[in-house]
């Protein structure tokens, strides 16, 4: 069966599953796809759109300020299915798009949806000379075009800003698909199609059996012990298939991808599902936006993700400029394998809390924002958290091994690290070392510092063991291996030399001398200095020389806008035609 046939089959199956219960403009794509020409289809979509999109305010002004999700959903629906819609639906969407107040939000995916919806609307509702924001329609169309092209330009030169987000990546992919299918300008359509392919390639390179391995700018809130997370789970299944199908794989909000004309290149699914050889992927992503409480700008993010036949280990160099910079839903590293929620992840986190953390990237008063943000999302302050960046966390990785270190000030509100371990893994405890049989792979964890076992259960979000590491200078060394390479867990444990982990300089006597060494099962020697260099076999890792993409299947130099994908004799070049001398458009959003 060809990839196109597979994709069509999955699309049809998801549409059939979703269509009967659809309640949003996004899901309405599935309603039309299921039975596009039936009269009741148009009436049902009219009801969905008129009741969920642009609800009128009870204020004397009778218009409501819109967010950015609904207008994008409605405009994508209008563009794709306007011939099948009835006139009432078309009129309603046009009225709301041209008369209501539209907010552009405060994250990169918000702005992308906002500008995409506005651009598509401005190209269609041409009898509105003055746009809802009081500007001439052409002026706002030009602004939307500049921002969208500027975002593409930035992404292909210095990396995606809101990078590899399990929860929000779909809100980057869908706008690009909408533009690829429906923008008026041929160049923009081509750029958007290539950008959609690049964003899907980002998923393919780190796809692992239904999930997305490694570090993420934003993980689904409280969901990072799940094996498939957020809206990306739906796109991963649609484009690459997967071991399970359920509500996460059939999300209404991703339904526009089920009926798009755009289809990703066949090669991406082949890359995603190729487990014949271990794959090491190195990526550079754009710096985090930290706009106060520090002097220096954040540095680029550098990711390392290693996927083998049975597990995936990913880590991140965050490039943060120091406390209190700590993006709130970032996940820096994890080890994952195939399995049910809570049972196939190992991750650690210092649940850093500081009021300055919020005001480092939100402009509300620093004195007030510590109460403001957690009021809506109290879990961002939880002591049992497993997400959110800590300025005191540092790490290095070499293939299937990593060193994760923390130097947490004694007066920190949460002076400990949460290390999450699945309950169903068979754990063998030898001194400070844990050996685990996950059922599909083996894992060694050398605990650094005082540790104490605990149990954690947070609704349906987290359910497993915690090993809590306390003190100044804690962390872990972790290495995973194929289960087929050893006769038993005991044999795996015996493979480690008793001196494999060198803590003789941890903690060191002074700054710049806090060091941990580790010799891997394959004999590579890792040497990590906290606040210093990371070495493999005495050669420092030169993060400054990191490429945009560096993997067997993907390569790109920084600031070129040319990404080359290759797999088993096939090749694909995405050339975005950038001018490397042109200043980058500033990215002034959260991401």
């Amino acid at each position, binding site marked *: 069966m060809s990839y196109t046939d597979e994709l069509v089959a999955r699309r049809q199956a998801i549409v059939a599953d979703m269509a009967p219960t659809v309640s949003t403009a996004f899901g309405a794509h599935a309603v039309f796809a299921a039975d596009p020409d039936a009269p009741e289809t148009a009436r049902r979509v009219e009801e969905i759109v008129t009741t969920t999109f642009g609800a009128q305010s009870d204020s004397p002004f009778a218009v409501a300020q819109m967010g950015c999700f609904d207008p994008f959903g409605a405009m994508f629906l209008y563009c794709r299915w306007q011939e099948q819609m009835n006139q009432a639906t078309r009129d309603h969407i046009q009225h709301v798009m041209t008369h209501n*107040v539209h907010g552009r939000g405060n994250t990169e995916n918000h702005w992308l949806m906002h500008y995409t919806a506005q651009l598509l609307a401005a190209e269609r509702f041409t009898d509105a000379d003055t746009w809802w*924001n009081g500007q001439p329609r052409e002026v706002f169309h030009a602004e939307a075009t500049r921002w969208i092209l500027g975002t593409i330009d930035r992404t292909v030169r210095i990396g995606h800003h809101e990078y590899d987000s399990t929860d929000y990546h779909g809100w980057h992919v869908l706008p690009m698909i909408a533009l690829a299918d429906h923008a008026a300008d041929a160049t923009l359509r081509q750029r958007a199609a290539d950008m959609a392919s690049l964003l899907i390639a980002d998923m393919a390179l780190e796809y692992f059996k239904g999930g997305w391995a490694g570090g993420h700018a934003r993980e689904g809130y409280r969901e990072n012990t799940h094996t498939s997370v957020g809206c990306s789970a739906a796109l991963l299944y649609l484009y690459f298939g997967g071991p399970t199908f359920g509500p996460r794989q059939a999300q209404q909000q991703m339904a526009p991808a089920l009926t798009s004309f755009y289809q990703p290149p066949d090669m991406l699914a082949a890359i995603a599902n190729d487990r014949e050889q271990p794959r090491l992927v190195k990526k550079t992503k754009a710096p985090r936006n930290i706009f106060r*409480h520090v002097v220096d700008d954040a540095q680029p993010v550098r990711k390392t993700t290693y996927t083998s036949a049975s597990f995936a280990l990913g880590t991140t160099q965050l490039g943060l400029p120091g406390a209190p910079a700590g993006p709130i839903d970032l996940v820096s590293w994890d080890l994952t394998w195939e399995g049910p929620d809570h049972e196939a992840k190992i991750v650690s986190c210092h649940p850093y809390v500081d009021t300055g953390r919020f005001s480092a990237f939100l*402009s509300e008063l620093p004195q007030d924002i510590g109460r403001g943000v957690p009021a809506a999302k109290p879990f961002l302050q939880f002591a049992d958290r497993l997400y959110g960046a800590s300025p005191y966390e540092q790490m290095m990785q070499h293939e299937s091994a990593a060193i994760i270190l923390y130097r947490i000030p004694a007066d920190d509100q949460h002076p400990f690290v949460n290390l999450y371990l699945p309950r169903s893994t068979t754990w063998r405890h030898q001194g400070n070392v844990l050996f685990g049989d996950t059922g599909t792979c083996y894992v060694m964890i050398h605990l650094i510092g005082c540790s104490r076992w605990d149990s954690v259960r947070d609704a349906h979000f987290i359910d497993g063991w915690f090993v809590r590491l306390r003190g100044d200078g804690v962390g872990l060394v972790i290495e995973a291996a194929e289960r087929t390479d050893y006769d038993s867990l005991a044999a795996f444990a015996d493979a480690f030399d008793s001196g494999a982990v060198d803590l003789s300089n941890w903690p060191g006597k002074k700054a710049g001398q806090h060091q941990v060494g580790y010799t891997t099962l394959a004999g590579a020697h890792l040497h990590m200095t906290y606040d210093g260099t990371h070495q493999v076999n005495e050669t420092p890792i030169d993060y400054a020389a990191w490429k945009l993409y560096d993997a067997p299947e993907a390569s790109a130099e920084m600031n070129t806008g040319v990404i080359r994908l290759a797999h088993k004799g096939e090749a694909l070049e995405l050339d975005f035609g950038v001018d490397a001398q042109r200043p980058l458009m500033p990215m002034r959003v959260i991401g």
Partner: protein
Amino acid sequence: MYAANDQGKFERLGAYQFRVTALTGSGTRVLAATGSGLWEVREDRWVQLHDETLTEVMDVIDTGPTMIAASAYGVAFGTVDPSGVPHWDWLSDDLNVNQRFTNAIVRLDDTRLLAGTEGGVLIHHATTGWSTTSLTSPVRCLLRSGDGYLAGANDGLWASADGQHWRPTGVTATVYALTANEDVVVAGSEEGVLVSAAGSPWCAAGLPGLRVTALALSATDAGLWYAGGVPGGLWRTTDHGQSWVAVPEVHIEVESIFAPGGRQ
């Protein structure tokens, strides 16, 4: 945004839900600095004055054709061309992170700007660019007062004759808002409203325990003041701050109050 009607009752003004951080009126128009850019507030609708580079606007000066915006990403000069296209030129790109984040701006003279930033007070000269001053703590508000300047900072209220050299005033609470009417200067602070008349020492003028983040004084009634607070509320006094009454219609966070004819 809320506005008082003829009966003094405040009503919600339009559907706009943007966080309003500053309001300014030039006599011909009212500008609203918001967390989502800069807008001209008209009777029928708000007109967008920002482009894709301007957001998180913290303060604004309107000089007619030119607008000066203070934002989380620095200071920018803006104009709108005859076809309605806004253009913004950025001044702060070479500053460090804290110095870029500008909470307040005041004109020193025709060529110099005073900028209150997270990295202290800076001066921008049209030809020589940025220079630092003696005040380096995070600044929340600025005011030209008499022959000199006041800066409300995280570590209190500071005064300067030239914008370059700053001295403490004795107020140590964080000051978020400053305004004046003739010889009366009023400050909104972490500990309520403070007042100084004719150069006298600062003293409390009500609302102790409220973080006062916005102030306005009536241009026609010397005793009529408004104060806005965080976490919320708009308060009114008619007796120079001896007693305050909450405006029941407004219970959201108030970060800016505009009194036509008065100073903000």
